[in-house]
């Protein structure tokens, strides 16, 4: 059972991304109007825009929050070939009374020669690290050695993926058994290089990232990719938004003590859903990886859940305007919810719908 709330975002153009902060109380939106807006949830559950400013000289594709251990920090990336890091400054008292805050730019990352398509912070146990991927197929990993000084970032790795990149996702696992790993998706129309998803892993010996696996069965353009929270499992789960929704299981194979290359991964497809019947643009996991949300060109958000037998099924469909689809599974009959009604916010565009971490 869902309660949908609509927020008039007041962006002057398409909204491309929506991102919740770690606690689900703040939200950032970015748009083709070149600006980023930050929203705060008040005690009564209303969302208020507390900041709105021009961030780039082109469409802003993605926006993402750093872990609150590093303060209130945002990163954005844009068609203007740059990515930027922003920090919130605690304002004057009269600003606070009006409910406004200021964000200032700490750094601009200008290494890319083409549009920067995604920006993501690495898991916090790796320090303050930022990753970008560009349309020219290069993934860049930056690090801020002093977390109190956000204007100093050094480029640590530059990885060429050979295919135009559209999205990245870090494996959130902090287990010692898992070296740092990220996945890159590509929307390249090139058919020579078959697999459109590549997995890279950090090698302690070479101190570099090397390709561990290419998912050869994903041959269509990939629009979004998301590792699921790990839950202490030995294997990894990856969701992919392409012409349909796909969930993969990546099982690390036992490594021989002499091998120095990346872990060999066995790739298994767990589920594949074409219910959207069109391009799927976003996939997003909940906190415990028990629920996956997807959004597609059919204007719907779908929720996917596995039962205790590990069979995945659709448990809810929402139209872009927040209304439920009639006849969708999970509709209440005689009984309705007593505790635990969830809140899903919907926006003025279809592509940028993201799962709120508080929805379970």
């Amino acid at each position, binding site marked *: 059972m869902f309660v949908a709330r609509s927020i008039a975002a007041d962006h002057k153009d398409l909204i491309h991304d929506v991102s919740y902060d770690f606690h689900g109380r703040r939200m950032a939106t970015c748009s083709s109007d070149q600006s980023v807006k930050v929203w705060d949830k008040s005690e009564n559950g209303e969302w208020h825009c507390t900041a709105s400013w021009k961030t780039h000289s082109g469409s802003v594709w993605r926006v993402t929050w750093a872990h609150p251990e590093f303060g209130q920090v945002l990163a954005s990336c844009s068609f203007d070939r740059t990515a930027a890091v922003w920090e919130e400054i605690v304002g004057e008292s009269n600003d606070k009374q009006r409910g406004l805050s200021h964000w200032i730019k700490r750094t601009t990352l200008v290494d890319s020669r083409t549009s920067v398509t995604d920006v993501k912070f690495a898991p916090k146990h790796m320090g303050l690290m930022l990753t970008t991927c560009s349309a020219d197929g290069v993934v860049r990993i930056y690090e801020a050695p002093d977390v109190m000084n956000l204007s100093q970032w050094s480029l640590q790795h530059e990885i060429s993926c050979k295919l135009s990149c559209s999205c990245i996702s870090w494996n959130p696992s902090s287990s010692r058994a898992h070296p740092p790993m990220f996945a890159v998706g590509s929307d390249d129309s090139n058919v020579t290089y078959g697999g459109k998803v590549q997995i890279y892993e950090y090698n302690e010996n070479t101190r570099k990232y090397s390709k561990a696996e290419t998912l050869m069965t994903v041959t269509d353009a990939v629009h979004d990719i998301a590792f699921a929270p790990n839950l202490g499992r030995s294997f990894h789960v990856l969701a992919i938004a392409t012409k349909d929704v796909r969930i993969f299981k990546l099982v690390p194979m036992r490594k021989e003590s002499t091998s120095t290359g990346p872990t060999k991964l066995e790739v298994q497809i767990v589920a594949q859903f074409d219910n959207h019947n069109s391009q799927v643009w976003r996939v997003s996991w909940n906190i415990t990886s028990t629920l996956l949300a997807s959004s597609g060109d059919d204007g719907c958000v779908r929720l996917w859940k596995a039962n*205790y037998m590990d069979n995945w099924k659709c448990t809810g469909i929402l139209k872009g305007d927040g209304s439920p689809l009639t006849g969708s599974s999970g509709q209440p009959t*005689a009984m309705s919810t007593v505790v635990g009604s969830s809140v899903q916010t919907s926006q003025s565009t279809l592509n940028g719908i993201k799962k709120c971490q508080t929805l379970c």
Partner: protein
Amino acid sequence: MEELQQVAASVLVLQVSILLAIELIWNLCEVLFIDAAPAGSLLLHLLDWVRLHKADVDEKAREVLQSESPAEHRDYWDVVVSYVLQGRLEEARQMLVKQAALQPAARSMYKLIDTLLSRMPFYNPGGNQTLTEFDVKWRHWHDEVNRCLQDNSFASNRHLEIICKILAGDEDTLLEHKELLSTWYHFLVTRLLFSHPTVKPTELHYYAQSCLTMFLDSRSVPEPLDNILLAAFEFDIHQVIKDCSIALNNWWFVAHLTDLLDHCKLLQSHNLHFGSNLREFLLLEYASGLFTHHSLWQLAVDYFDHCPEFGHVYLELQIERVPLDTERKALKVLRICDQRQMSEQVRSICKIMAMRALRNNRLGSALSWSIRAKDAAFATLISERFLQDYCTRGTFSDLDLIDNLGPAMLLSDRLTFLGKYREFHKLYGEKRFGEAAKLLLSLMTAKIAPRSFWMTLLTDALPLLEQKEVIFSADQTHELMFCLEELTSCLNASALGSPKTSQDEDIELTKVELLRLSLARNLAMAIIKEGTVEA
């Protein structure tokens, strides 16, 4: 406003009906699965179950009895029949006495019905009678009832005839009283009571299915509740859980029911090796839902504690997402993490709070949080800020905190220095100059103080040097001078690198000269004092 109240009222009514339905299901599951009554007792339990969930009979009876002439009340016969349908024969007899009093002419009929009612055997599980013996006795009584019907003993009194037919277990008569029965499961139990009281658990579902079919109109469809009850009568636990999961929109009921059944080892006995996983799965779902609530999340913690496989990791993931609105809430979360040795979560939460405090320039709060996080680097950073603050403003903020650091002081060198430096100020304030002097010196010689701060410390030493009484001994003064020389040689070296305004340089030079002078004077006085023989 009225509309809102109406909406609220209807929501409440709906929730009450859900609660009643849940109670109904729960009690039936208790009877069938947990008590697992055998034939004989089974019917008695089911009778209790029906009586428990049909309260309106007593209300009506009260109304009738409180009226002036109960036997003439329009609901009188409804009450009597309802009592009979529920097997409450004693109460039916008492009601009939009132009617009998009004109709002396029909005395023999009333006597007869009273006899039939009083003689109906009820199985006594604790007694000596076996089920077979009871069955024989019951059939005997049943035959007697049938004889009365065939003899047309009650032909002249429609009501008594109906009662007799009910006692005989006549289905058509029972179905004529659908309104009084109101539910098919009442019909089921009543039917069993008067036709097959020794029903075995395994036979229940035949009767249940047929009763449901008979009771419902040809047009109406079974509701989800009906299907759930039917699945229970079929002893299909899994189906019950599944149907409840679909019909209800939150996991509260199924999670607790499955947990109970699992503890009674009933899930395993149904040959499901994933029995315990099902329980954990549902509990995890329920508890995860609780975590979204602003105050119920604390309950969820207990649920996770009782999920052996995934409870801990779920808790780790969920608890770090609890919004830390206030310090009090943060402390609550921390206590939960501390109790479960979730040290990484403790560190993370303290770091988040420390960062937030620092951003808002609440240095004291930031410091105490970073001490709690055992974050040496951050503690160093905040101590630097404190010291910078002191240099610019001449006073310390958050004195309470710094004074009461205790062993936490040792977390970082800078923090230790801050604590000790504040101690120096306290000693000075208390005019314990000797101790203050010793402390000041040790801060420099033991290298606790950062080099950048030495000038400030030496400047602090000035008033001690200028006192009438000699405080620093000759040796101590020598050491001070040594420190000064070290400092000036360092400064000279660094001065070449960093351009200073001539004004700054002047100030520096003046300070150094003042110090040299004071030190020299002090040295002289100290030598004299130490060389003097006390008279």
